[in-house]
Each structure stands twice: as C-alpha cells, then as structure tokens.
C-alpha cells in the first residue's frame, strides 16, 4: 500500500544582532565557553530582561518578507521545562500572541509549477545554551543562551521531502535578502524540525505525526524525511500504529530514533511573562519597514528575465544569493552582455569560489574586471581560452585584464598572413591526417583547430583560422 506524506517544518533562525535578545552580552559565535554571559542570561535571581529593539525590527522584516500579517500587539510567554542548557528553567518565547501570523512562501516544484506553502506563525524566543556530552557528565556552555531566535512554523502543506527542501532553501534566500540572519545550517544559525505523518491518499485525514529533530543541512532534511516516511509506511503495513513522539535524526546512520523520556516534557505550562511588557507596534513602524524592503527573490527573478533576457535557469541561479544578483548587475552595468556575464559567474567564478571557499566579492575579481574580460572577448581581442588565463591572473594579482593582455602579448591574432603560415606548418607536420581530412574525414577539424591553437599559443582567432584551414585543404 502506498501513502502520501504530510510535512510541516518548524525552523529556528538565529538573528544576526550585535547583542543578545534580553541583555547586552555579545551575540558573536565562537567565543571561549561562558565568556559571553552575564547575570541575565545566566538566569541569576532578581535580574530583569530588556528586549533588544533590533529583534523586533528583524522579526517584522522577516514577517513582511514572508507575507505575514503583523500583530499590533504581541506578548512574551514562559515555556517551562528543566534541562541543563536552560538556566532559568523556562524559555522566554511567545505563545498565544506571536508577532507574525498567516504568511506564505511560493516554491517552485520540479515540473515547473508553483505551490504556495502557508506559514502559520513567526514568534520571537531566546536560544538555549550548548551541552557537551562527556563520559559520565555533561558540560554546559551558556554563550548561546539568549541568542535571539525567530521560530518560523509552516502549515502542513508540504507533500514530499523535495518540497520540504525547496521550501527551506527559499526561506533561507528570503531571510538573507532582508538581512536578518546568515542562515548557516552547518553552524546552527538555521535549524529545522520536521513534523512528518503519512496517509493513504490525499483525501484521508492526517495521520499521527512524529517530530524529527536535529536536522542540520538541506540534504539531511531530505534524508530524514524520506527515512521517516519509509519507517511509518513499514509500521502501518505491518499492522502497527504510529506513536506521536519526538525522534532524533542521526546524520551518520541516516536513521531517526525515538527520544525516550520526553513524553512529559511537552507539558510546558505556558503563561505570560510578567517581566516583559507586551510589544505594541505603531502603524508607522511597520510602514517604515515596508518602505525599507529590498526587492525579494521572486520579483528579482521576474525582472532579470524580462530586463536582461535571461533564461529562467540563469535568473534562478543569480537570485539564489543576494550577492550574486548584486555582482551580476554591477558587471552588466560596466559591460552590457548579460548572458555572457552570467555564464562567467556560473562557470569560472563559481569554480573559484569553491576552490577558495570565499564569497563572491572576496574572489579577487571585481564585477568591473569580469565585465572587462567579457568585453575583451566581445571585441575579438582575446579568445575564450586566453580569457580564462586572464581571469586567473586578474584574480591572483588584482591587475586590470586589459593590462595583463597588453603586458603578456595575449591579444588574439587575426592576421591572415601569419595565421596562414601557422596552418601550413601544422598541415605539413601531420601529413597522414591531412590526407584523411582532405579525403572527407570531417571530424579531424577539431584535431587541426587544436593543433593550430597550440602552435599559436592559444592566440589564433578561430573565426579567421577556420576558413583558412578550409581553403588550404580543399
């Protein structure tokens, strides 16, 4: 029997503020254990949390970008549970009155159609500390305690692991565009829990769900959901029942396992936090943020296709990170050949980013220099092969491409007389191939072009060489 999975995602996103949510400790990742802590985030008695204004701003920005309604009044609540990573024994969160509600993201499915995924709510909360499990004890680092989080809860609208991944990637891109988080799943600044259930067909009521925790990469979201789907199918096919539970995904083994002893823990006894007054947002505050909003990925994609005549695939790549689009537009401004600029970004530049593990603006090639390389090709001054050499040289030395071409004498040779001599020389050096080529073996064209390029040190202009080769062999 086959089943349809029903998936909803809860995504925790660390906000990239300078200080923590309720105290002035630094919000930087990677400090020595327990050095970014103070009486407030250590949960000492008698302290008072004071809300970071940026946390409200960032969450509303995210809410607007995700098409949410912004509540004019929202309230903090205490979520009570005991765990050593939570020194107060309660987490300050939002419960009944979250700051953003009823939003959505449009994702693109593999067949090219769009699907709208509902966002139930976004609420503000504080992160907990980090536990290091050692033999016989656990060691607690509370640096992360009080890191501002927004929890973004989707509707159970996702129907496959692939859709879940597409949703997550789109969410990440949008949050990067509004600059509220660096959304680094590997470093934990974006974390995902998946609620997964299955049902016999799309008209059946939802089945019992399991909550999968600890999924820390896009690939693992897909793996964890696929595994869980199979596990539940097996249980039902063997006549069993799905238990509502929390399960932990293990990235090494690729399986999910039940977290024992958590049955009680879901009784969180939420109540409004008396230490924090409600957030009331004025219309002007929200309107100002609406006015601030940058162009978002969907709008940019449509514009890149219409304004620059790019294909959907090219435009999709360029909007996948905000910096790519910025880089592209800067380069096109310097030399108006969008398709070629896009190809160079997707090809050579991305290869360099992978090699150097750096961002697009750190790769050593400014958009203006990339544009200059494309311009040199378009003007027939250098060949595509030479351009790659110039690209590497520019990236390493920071010199202008035109200067490198002049310095090293890399200008493409279009002189018919000189090239004719080279073609003759190559034909003479390969008499057997020349005979076969003359005899109609057309595929040898590539061989000869290669030899000629080699003999000219890559500088022969192919557009001039091709007719010469034809002339001298007919």
């Amino acid at each position, binding site marked *: 029997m086959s089943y349809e999975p029903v998936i909803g995602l809860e995504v925790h996103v660390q906000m990239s503020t300078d*200080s923590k949510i309720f105290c002035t400790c630094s919000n930087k990742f990677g400090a020595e254990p327990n050095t970014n*802590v103070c009486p407030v985030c250590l949960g000492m008695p008698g302290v008072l949390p*004071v809300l970071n204004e*940026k946390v409200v701003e960032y969450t509303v920005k995210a809410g607007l970008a995700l098409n949410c309604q912004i509540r004019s009044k929202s309230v903090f609540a205490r979520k009570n549970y005991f765990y050593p990573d939570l020194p107060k024994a309660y987490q300050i969160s939002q419960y009944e009155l979250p700051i953003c509600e009823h939003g959505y993201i449009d994702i693109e499915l593999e067949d090219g159609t769009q699907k709208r995924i509902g966002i139930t709510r976004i609420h503000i909360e504080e992160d907990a500390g980090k536990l290091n499990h050692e033999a016989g004890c*656990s060691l607690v680092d509370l640096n992360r305690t009080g890191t501002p989080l927004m929890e973004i809860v989707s509707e159970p609208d996702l129907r496959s692991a692939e859709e879940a991944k597409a949703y997550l990637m789109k969410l990440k891109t949008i949050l990067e565009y509004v600059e509220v988080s660096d959304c680094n799943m590997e470093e934990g600044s974006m974390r995902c829990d998946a609620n997964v259930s299955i049902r016999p067909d799309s008209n059946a009521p939802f089945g019992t769900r399991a909550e999968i925790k600890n999924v820390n990469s896009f690939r693992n979201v897909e793996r964890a959901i696929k595994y869980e789907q199979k596990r539940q199918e097996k249980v039902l096919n063997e006549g069993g029942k799905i238990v509502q539970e929390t399960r*932990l995904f293990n990235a090494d083994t690729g399986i999910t396992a039940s977290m024992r002893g958590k049955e009680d823990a879901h009784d969180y006894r939420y109540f*409004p936090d008396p230490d924090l007054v409600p*957030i009331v947002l004025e219309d002007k505050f929200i309107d100002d943020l609406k006015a601030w909003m940058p162009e978002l990925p969907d709008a940019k994609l449509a514009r890149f296709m219409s304004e620059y005549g790019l294909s959907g695939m090219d435009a999709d790549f360029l909007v996948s990170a905000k910096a790519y689009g910025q880089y592209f537009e800067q380069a096109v401004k310097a030399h108006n050949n969008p398709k070629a600029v896009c190809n160079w970004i997707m090809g050579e530049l991305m290869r360099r980013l992978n090699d150097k593990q750096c961002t697009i603006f750190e790769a050593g090639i400014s958009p203006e220099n990339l544009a200059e390389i494309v311009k040199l090709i378009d003007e027939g001054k250098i060949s595509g092969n030479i351009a790659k050499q110039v690209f590497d040289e520019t990236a390493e030395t920071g010199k202008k491409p035109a200067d490198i071409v002049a310095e090293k004498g890399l200008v493409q040779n279009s002189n018919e007389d000189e090239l004719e001599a080279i073609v003759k020389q190559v034909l003479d050096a390969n008499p057997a191939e020349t005979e076969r080529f003359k005899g109609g073996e057309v595929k040898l064209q590539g061989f000869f072009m290669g030899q000629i390029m080699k003999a000219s040190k890559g500088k022969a202009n192919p557009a001039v060489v091709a007719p010469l080769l034809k002339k001298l062999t007919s």
Partner: protein
Amino acid sequence: MSQTVSKKDVLHIATLARLKFDDEQAERFTNDLNNILGYIDKLNELNTDNIEPTSHALDIYTVTRPDKAEASLSNEDAIRNAPQSENGMFRVPKVIE
C-alpha cells in the same frame, strides 16, 4: 466544593516541577489548590464578554533597548558559584537524550 484539581493532577505537576510529595502532602495540596481555585472561581461571575484578556496590569508597552553589545562577566566570575566546573564550563550530571 467541586474537585477541579485531582490528586493525580497534583502529582503530575509535582513531577514536572521536580518535587516529591508523600501521600499526606499530596492530599493536602489537592485540597488547598481546590480551595484557591474555588475562590478564584468567583471571578467567573463577572461579565467579561467585551474585555480583552489581560496579560499585564501595567499601562506600559514595548520597552526596548538599543542593540549594543557591552562587556560580559569574566569566565571566572561566570562559573564562580558552580558546584562543579571543567574547562570553563558548568559540569552537570550526564543528561541522556
């Protein structure tokens, strides 16, 4: 008086709060809690149809501070009161997930 809180509820809440009660204490708290809730029940006699739920009694909203990081405690001070510590971290009994 109606029993809104059962002894089972009291023992459940005690477990969540990491408290241990013997039988006599559990009986007593059940009784006390029912008395308290019964008293508070009086509020239900009021008509609150057009009143928004109150979470805070103060007429103050949106108290925030600028996003500016300042110095934290030293690691020494941070773990000074910890019964056990190791490598600058709080050492606690092993928690098994």
